[in-house]
């Protein structure tokens, strides 16, 4: 089964995208200076996956920090998922935030307001 993976660094998140099972995981920190360059391979893979997506796609986002440069790229990722969802395959985005992190919860709610995909806000312990 085809997979797209990137190991995390102090400035970029770990990405695990299992195109065979339709599970995408983004975890860690996303604070690169050049976010477009970093997210391009993921966006390209999502585009490819969108041509024949699984009946259900699950996306787990668990970010500790992300910068505003990443916020646009994350929206681009979500827009690709929205297109898949609108195409008839179900997509769920699980947005994780640490229990004291109101800013991260609010950031998830901002995306939820923009993107027409079911969001689940998942609180995790610190």
């Amino acid at each position, binding site marked *: 089964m085809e997979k797209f993976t990137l190991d995390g660094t*102090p400035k970029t998140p770990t990405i695990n995208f299992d195109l065979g099972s339709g599970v995408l995981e983004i975890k860690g920190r996303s604070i690169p*200076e050049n976010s477009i360059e970093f997210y391009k391979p993921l966006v390209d893979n999502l585009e490819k996956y969108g041509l024949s997506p699984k009946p259900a796609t699950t996306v787990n986002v668990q970010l500790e920090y992300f910068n*505003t*440069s990443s916020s646009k790229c994350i*929206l681009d990722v979500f827009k690709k998922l929205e297109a898949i969802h609108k195409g008839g395959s179900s997509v769920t985005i699980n947005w994780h935030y640490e229990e*004291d992190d109101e*800013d991260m919860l609010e950031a998830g709610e*901002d995306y939820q*307001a923009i993107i027409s995909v079911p969001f689940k806000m998942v609180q995790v312990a610190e």
Partner: protein
Amino acid sequence: MMLDLFDFYDKMERNNILLSFKGDITSDLLTSILQIMESKMDNFQEEPKTKKKVYNVLVECLQNLYHHMDEAPVDSGEYGRSAIFMIGKLDGAYNVITGNYILNENVSGLKSRLDEVNSLSKDELKEYYKQILNNGEMSLKGGGGLGMVDIARKTGQKLHYTFQPIDEKVSFFSLNIKVTLNQ
């Protein structure tokens, strides 16, 4: 010229400056600075909430400097690729202070963007953020103006800034961001 080092030291001590830097802002430098500040905040045993807030604001302020290093009129050789920042902790608040040259022709544009951010309430900032995020043009350099809105949202404070005219080409832009603890 003889530098009065004690004068520097004394001023930094009185403002409780934890870290300061003047020079070219590179990606590697920012990685190191962020690591140093994280371990300092660990040593101070700051609450996770405080650490996150300060870290986020720091990332935005310093990357803002990084992205605007190119705008200094390097060709003149006079100003070079150089900026300054200081991080301090005073009276229960972290202060992130940045300074960089800006072309005079860009001053009024930046000033009106900062004034607009400062005129908005908490709810208006949230709407403005979503509007830029969803509709705004993403520049190769950054979030296309999202940074200042994000800083204002996360700190709940006005952005304090000054523009100091230097000569017919450039001004010096200073930004002072305060992150209040336990808000």
